[in-house]
């Protein structure tokens, strides 16, 4: 059994996980809650971690699953976001383009299956390259590329229809 120090996980990955939670959930308060929940789950599962995957991969997967489950309750979440609004002070280092892209991905994700959602989060939210995505998901690079192209094609179709996509700047 591999020993994992929760303090080390925090030092190395907390800011990355927070950035991902913020991008996926859309507001700092929910991102804080999600980050805490990810670490709680990691701590509870630490005994069963055997080191056959990287701690980062393991932690990212917990985070992905948790955030996707939260996004699934998107209607309730959207109402809360509208009440709270975005807090610009806490995301000042994120560019407008990143905020826009994150909102776009957040809205697109429910139209895809779980594997495609995971892929999109690694590539578009975490901004991994295709090799890193392949390693994180246990896929080959050509498979990742093929699935990304498929994701993009479907995403563009959805966006071109102008479905009920909520652009943050329009609110």
């Amino acid at each position, binding site marked *: 059994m591999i020993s994992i120090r*929760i*303090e080390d996980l*925090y*030092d*190395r*990955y*907390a*800011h*990355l996980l*927070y*950035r991902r939670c913020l991008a996926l959930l859309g507001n700092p308060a929910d991102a804080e809650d999600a980050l*805490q*929940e990810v*670490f*709680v*789950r*990691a*701590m*509870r*599962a630490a005994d*069963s*971690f*055997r*080191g*056959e*995957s990287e701690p*980062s991969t*393991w932690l990212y*997967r*917990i985070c992905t*699953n*948790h955030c996707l*489950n*939260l996004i*699934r*309750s998107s209607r309730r979440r959207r109402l809360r976001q509208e009440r709270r609004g975005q807090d610009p002070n*806490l995301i*000042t*280092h*994120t560019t407008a*383009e990143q905020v826009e*892209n994150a909102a*776009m*991905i957040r809205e*697109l994700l429910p139209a895809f299956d779980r594997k495609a959602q995971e892929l999109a989060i690694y590539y*578009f939210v*975490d*901004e*991994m*390259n*295709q090799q*890193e995505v392949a390693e994180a998901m246990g896929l080959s690079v050509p498979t990742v*590329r093929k699935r*990304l*192209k498929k994701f*993009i094609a479907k*995403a*563009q179709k959805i*966006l071109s229809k102008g479905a009920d996509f909520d652009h943050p700047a329009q609110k």
Partner: protein
Amino acid sequence: MTIQLRNEEHPSRHLLSRLLAGDLDDKERGTTEKHVSSCSECKDLLVRIKVELESFHTSHNKENFLAQVKELAESTQTKHLAWWQLAWRPAGLLAAAAMIVALMLFSIQHLPEDPDTRMKGSGIELGLFVMEGSEAKITDPSQLRHPGDRIQFHLTAPAGGYLHLLGIDEAGVLSVYFPRPGAAHESYPGGAARPVPGSVILDDTLGRERVFVLICAEAMAPDELLARVRSLSGDPQQLLEAQELDLDCRQASVLITKEAK
């Protein structure tokens, strides 16, 4: 609109973040630093990430955060109620009676088709009851559940054996629901739509949980079962996705998804 493939001639943002967090080995760090030293675009990005990283650590108190995490991790343990704990209470008796009636009605029906439900072996079907007050309601296993729900499984198995019930959630936590530690583990007779001993109150870990029912030729104690299952994969998440376990038992599994109320 920037939902498109990126040019990958530069290190990824993710890699640069890991560089700053000290998460790269010597070789990766050397290669990345060499590129950054001669690339103004990557230097700029590295500065932005550094500011973001410092901002995160300034606005987050690590000690407080970890103290809260430890407290929560220790306080949110799964609570189980065994069927015999349920049955001695008057409400529990009513629930048990309601369940038997429901089972009789249900035994002439087929379980709904569910892509997340996996049955291995001949004729094993796994279904789910949700206890609502004194009522036991048959429910589609794929229907969303909530923390605090009391559930019980029912099983149709053409042949008996030693029954084992365990779940793995998205935190990677494995829980043995049956047999209970120290309790008698008698052979399960098989048959149509029998309740699996032991009801479970769902804990507050949201997300998916895969529950496996194993009917084996030999009985395994909870510790032994956990050790056997853990030996199958070092990554608990793989078990969650596995649908079936590489154990010499007839088995079925069902995926439950928990959502906040």
